[in-house]
């Protein structure tokens, strides 16, 4: 039972919260991310997100230090995606790393396929698809106001005449809108296999099944065309 009279998520079974809490505590990074918390607020004062959102890196450190499972679950659902992962919070006198705690919690939220994780990552599905299918990161044509409303009003103006803006940049290699740069097919396929074999594709499946299915279809056809048999690699790993 939560210590707070205004607790949320009291309909979620405690065991479910505890399981996720233990996952985070068992993370090998945990002992390096959290010692104890004075609740002094130096991390909040340093945090850019805290200036714009109702967000506090301090709360993550203090709630985890107290092993408050109910409030951990509130944070996991309501606040864990508000961090910009800049690690300004690491100036902590106890040498805590609230941003690192948040990263571990995000991993747990993604692994559990929490709705909050799906909502937060929806805009990034296109980026994941782009990275995993082309091997390049954010492409200029992805900067659409619909997807990144928090990037401000200029995004709309830039998106309307993207091709012109890109061609205004001196190096010819950047006169692209669909790709940041060209990646060889061999590299793309090797990266895909690494992601697949290390379980990253499974994580994506839990968060956005649609993107996962498209990726798998496109990439495994490409693998076949190039004579790769992914089962061979799985067999090698199992041996």
């Amino acid at each position, binding site marked *: *039972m939560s*210590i*707070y*009279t*205004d607790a949320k998520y009291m309909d979620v079974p405690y065991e479910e919260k505890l399981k996720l809490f233990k996952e985070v505590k068992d993370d090998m990074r945990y002992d390096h991310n959290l*010692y*104890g*918390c004075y*609740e002094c607020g130096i991390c909040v004062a340093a945090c850019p997100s805290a200036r714009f959102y109702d967000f506090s890196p*301090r*709360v993550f450190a*203090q709630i985890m*230090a*107290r*092993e*408050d499972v109910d409030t951990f679950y509130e944070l996991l659902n309501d606040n864990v995606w508000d961090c910009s992962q800049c690690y300004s919070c690491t100036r902590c006198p*106890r040498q805590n790393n609230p941003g690192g705690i948040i990263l571990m919690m995000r991993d747990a939220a993604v692994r559990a396929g929490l709705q909050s994780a799906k909502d937060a990552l929806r805009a990034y599905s296109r980026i994941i698809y782009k990275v995993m299918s082309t091997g390049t990161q954010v492409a200029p044509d992805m900067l659409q106001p619909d997807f990144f409303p928090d990037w401000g009003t200029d995004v709309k103006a830039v998106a309307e005449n993207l091709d012109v803006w890109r061609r205004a940049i001196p190096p010819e290699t950047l006169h692209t809108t669909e790709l940041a740069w060209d990646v060889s097919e061999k590299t793309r396929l090797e990266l895909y296999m690494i992601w697949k074999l290390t379980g990253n594709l499974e994580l994506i499946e839990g968060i956005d099944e649609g993107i996962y299915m498209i990726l798998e279809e496109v990439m495994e056809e490409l693998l076949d065309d190039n004579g790769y048999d992914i089962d061979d690699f799985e067999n090698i790993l199992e041996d």
Partner: protein
Amino acid sequence: MSNKPILVIGGGPAGLEATRGIADLGYNAILVDKSDVLGGNPISANYAALTPDMRSAEEAMAEMVDAITDNPLVDIRMNTTVVGSEGDAPNLKVTLQNESGEEVVDAGSVIVSTGFQHFDPGKETQMYGYYEHDDVITIVDAEKMLKDDNFVVPSSGKKPEQICFIQCVGSRDRQIGNQWCSKVCCGIASKQAIEIRDILPETRVFIFYIDMRMYGFWEDEIYWKAQEEKNVNYIRGIVTEITKRGDKLLVKGEDTTMGRPMEIPMDMVVLSVGMEPSEGTTQMADTFKLPLESHGFIGTTGGALNTVQTKVPGVFVAGAAAGPADLEDSISMGGAAVMKACAFLRKSELQPA
């Protein structure tokens, strides 16, 4: 060298250290204690392990008592009180009283080490119900339970699942009239929390505080240890009342750093009671006409530069009789008082009045 003894009143840590120091310097000491056992509060109040080094209180006090036992320069008077004093140091005539009657002794100088008493939680102005609920105890009660190796819920005899400490009970409180910080309770509560988590690893322990005052090495040796290794829950916010709900105690408060209201069921609540001047301290101030400082402890002169000189020449104070003190303070003051008392005697011999 003067044969007049230095009278030490109170055989707690400060008085024991003072007595040892007097004898070590070759002066005579009379140690008076109203009880039948030396060691002061650590013994009479059944302290288990001392803060911060966790050494057994019994063992540490025995070491101090051994250091003055069977010393020809030390005259120990147990079950004895000081009931009167005539004249001025170094020519004091002090009346001692015990079962067999009164006796007047000469004293060249006096060291008052009559210490403190634990705040009586019946006087608190919150609603903690110490005398109402069996499972509301004090850190003093907890010490005894830890010493007896029997830390259980008083009403049921079972292991507690969830307990909390409430800090600053009887300290830092204008309502009560005790405006001082008692210095040691943050450390003692944290020390006890560590001990409880050691013997009952399944028990969840909370400490509700206003400020944690873990000065010097207590910081990482006790506070960080309790929080980082024992997962003691430190929550800034003081409980306003304790009510009974079923067989649990419900504590109500605000988590001030989260800005959220709390209601938490507890099996036991431990009140971190502070220090007040002991009855003996108040009586000795009266007997030797020692002005009190504004909080009611024995006043000193010279501020930070002289922690043991009272306003009466030749009469010194050591330990918690002069204000809240931890063991280190008390021992250091015992030594400082000896130095001043012996210097006072020596000067009076060289320049007789």
